[in-house]
């Protein structure tokens, strides 16, 4: 395995817009909201940025293609801007591009910005899209909840978990995220809920009810990265946050077309996690990682992801969840910012939003959500469908951790 980029890149600043139904904002306005905060936090002028990466997933709904919308929104001085898209891992992809540019020495300071403006469709849920000339001829017309709901049926069958018990554990995932999100002023959904609300909600795609599904939101998030040395030279000597690992695993069609996958877990996440732990030199993630922001697009996704990240033993995450292991006051807090469930899910921004929470936590700036002295955090994105997806695992932490 390659040597990796552990501690070669530091986060100089971050910003995040309020997520939600931002009826008064274009995507371009949301970008500025996030980047203004990010620049102020970094303490630099736009002119110091050598290159930028820009992530959107459903660009046809808002800004359109290419890096131009970012350059125009920020009036960037004709620097390189690369637009990236990799399903729901898009935000992390822009961060990865910026970090690799810094780690390679191609850029001293790089910007990563993600944005999505989803609430201009006229209906709830994610925008519908064409899937391409050939896929349209044989793919089911599946919604995102319909695709992910199948994890639950396969998980129940594989582990012999009663569907009702699994549904209760899934509900517990959402109750926890709502409790966390209620404490986050930038979150889309800020209402605490009880378990009956989740269990009795209208069915979206069996067994996923409305409260098993994350918010569909408008929002933007941004990061400025540089080397630890440059960060220090810019006066950021104390409590530097550095990148420990950035990994991505992409399905090659095995889950979709080969009978070696049983439908109850993510092959990609397991691979990405194994590589990320190795890059970050983490051997016992359940003991060594302080907090997690995982891709809880649906409650069942979070549940199986806790196993795919090697935190819960296979077939036991539902018990850990019911035991409160991942609650804010549990052993490993997960979705401390509310997660996709409540912070919301503007696709191209989500990976950066997760890193933003990590960054605030390391700097002790997480307000009512502040954890006690976190040292290592892991973010995870999952894009596509359980049977064909991209999964990113990023690990960040204190430079001295």
């Amino acid at each position: 395995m390659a040597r990796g980029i552990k501690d070669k890149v530091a986060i100089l600043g971050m910003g995040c817009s309020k997520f939600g139904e931002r009826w008064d904002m274009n995507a371009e306005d949301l970008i500025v909201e996030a980047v203004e905060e990010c620049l102020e936090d970094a303490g630099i002028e736009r002119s110091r940025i050598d290159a930028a990466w820009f992530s959107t997933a459903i660009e046809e709904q808002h800004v359109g293609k290419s890096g131009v919308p970012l350059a125009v929104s920020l009036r960037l001085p004709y620097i390189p801007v690369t637009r990236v898209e990799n399903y729901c891992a898009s935000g992390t992809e822009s961060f990865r591009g910026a970090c690799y540019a810094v780690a390679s020495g191609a850029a001293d300071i790089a910007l990563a910005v993600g944005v999505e403006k989803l609430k201009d469709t006229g209906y709830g849920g994610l925008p519908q899209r064409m899937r391409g000339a050939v896929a349209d001829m044989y793919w089911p017309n599946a919604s995102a909840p319909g695709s992910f709901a199948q994890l639950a049926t396969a998980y129940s069958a594989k582990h012999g978990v009663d569907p009702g018990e699994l549904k209760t554990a899934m509900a517990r995932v959402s109750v926890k995220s709502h409790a966390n999100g209620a404490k986050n002023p930038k979150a889309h959904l800020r209402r605490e809920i009880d378990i009956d609300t989740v269990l009795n909600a209208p069915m979206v795609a069996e067994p996923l009810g409305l409260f098993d599904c994350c918010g569909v939101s408008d929002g933007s998030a941004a990061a400025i990265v540089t080397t630890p040395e440059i960060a220090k030279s810019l006066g950021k000597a104390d409590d530097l946050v550095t990148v420990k690992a950035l990994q991505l695993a992409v399905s090659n069609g095995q889950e979709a077309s080969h009978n070696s996958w049983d439908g109850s877990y993510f092959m990609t996440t397991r691979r990405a996690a194994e590589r990320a732990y190795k890059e970050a030199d983490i051997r016992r993630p359940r003991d060594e990682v302080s907090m997690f922001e995982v891709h809880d697009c649906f409650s069942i996704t979070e549940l199986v992801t806790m196993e795919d990240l090697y935190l819960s033993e296979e077939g036991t995450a539902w018990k850990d969840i019911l035991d409160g292991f991942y609650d804010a006051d549990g052993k490993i807090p997960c979705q401390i910012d509310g997660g996709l469930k409540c912070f919301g899910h503007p696709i191209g921004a989500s990976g950066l939003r997760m890193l933003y929470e990590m960054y605030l936590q390391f700097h002790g700036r997480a307000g009512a959500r502040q954890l006690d002295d976190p040292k290592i955090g892991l973010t995870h994105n999952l894009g596509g469908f359980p049977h064909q997806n991209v999964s990113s695992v990023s690990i960040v932490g204190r430079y001295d951790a």
Partner: protein
Amino acid sequence: MPGSDTVGLKAYGAYVPRLRLSRKAIAEANAWFNPAIKGLAKGERAICNWDEDSLTMGVEAARDCLTPARLDGGAATIAAVHFASTTLPFGDRQNAGILATALNFGENVATMDFTASQRAGTSGLLNALRSAKAGDTAGDTLFVAADKRRTQASGPQELQFGDAAAAFTVGGSGGGVIAAYLGGHQLSTDFIDHYRGGDSKYDYNWEERWIRDEGYFKIAPRAIAAALAEAGLDAGAVDRFIMPALIRGVPQKVAALAGIRAEAVRDTLQAQLGEAGTAHPLVMLADCLQEAAPGETILVVGWGQGCDALLFRTTDALASLPPRQGVKGWLARRREETNYNRYLSFNDLLEQDRGIRAELDAPTALSALYRNRDMVLGFVGGKCRICGTVQYPKTRACVSPNCGAFNSQDPHPFAEIPAKVQSWTADNLTYSPDPPAHFGMVVFDEGGRLMADMTDVAPGEVAVGMPVRMVFRRRAVDDKRGFIKYFWKATPDHTAGETTGGSE
């Protein structure tokens, strides 16, 4: 091939959709406007699911007919595929060609559509029999007939019509004829008991009493007499008399006029199925063959701007024909529908608010469809020559994690491979003409899998591990361009008939 004395039917098959609309439900909704239909409000009629049409029913009937030939290569003897329907999904795109592609008959097959008359079914079959007799056909003909006639709300036809299909292989000389063709006659006269204009959705009908007295009673006996004369048979020799007619007592009176024994007259399946248009005489023939003994003489009458009469005699080979669903099997696979509004919706008789999600515009790239016609219409995947992995779709690189070879796959048909459900959901969010949309990962017993739409399922019916079979259905309809997108879906594999009722 020289002309053969022994030509006839070598196999039969049928298809009846799973849904049966209760006639009581139709009458309850409409009798306020047309009280006359109360008298018809008994039994049920077969109705297509939203994703079924004449072509999809025809594919199922053909598969039933070819049982189990498609699995062992026996279908290679099929040299022609003919399709008869007055409700062809495409006005100008050969429907028999789609059928042949769906059944993977390759390019070297003669295809033809027969249409524009209720007599298209019997006339087309007669044509195939005469070709076989003349030795004009290099192999057997697969003859398929199906109809899904649209009717206006509140009319009697809404209760009387039904949707169904029948299929036969027609040939001779090679043996295996289960019903030998004895002779037949076609009588053509422009007697317009009803018509459907080229641009009309519905039939226009004239008075029943005129149709009965001036039509059936005067025309049909002449055609029957001519067919009997050609076969050199006396009317008393007819053991089974097959004649669809919606006017009460007509088959019985025509039999009497022709000198056929009253007990030979077959039930028209009106109580369980309804009348399946141009396919109906052939549906009745398939039903008759399913219970007939060797040595029985069968007379089939087709009606429509004249009259066809065809005579057959069952042979000893009928007894050794492999079992199949047939009309009786499909009729037993039944689910009662009592929601009349759902029937209206499935048949475009209701203006519904389908929501913005239904607006997604997804035109079909015809060039891409042609490139992938075997994959999409024929449901052909691949099998790796190097590692043996069976996979769908067939791609340039083998999917096996231990192989990955390039350009290593031979075509591998999937349609007849048994499969099971690995994961599933019922999706209320995505647009479906019959929500919730059921789909899931379907795993094939020989290897390979597909995230597949499911059809003919009711909420609560699907479970992990459930056996399914694949069926050719409408995936979607592009209303804007009048294009129908066909693909294969998974449906519960009911090897045994189901008789449970209840509305879905």
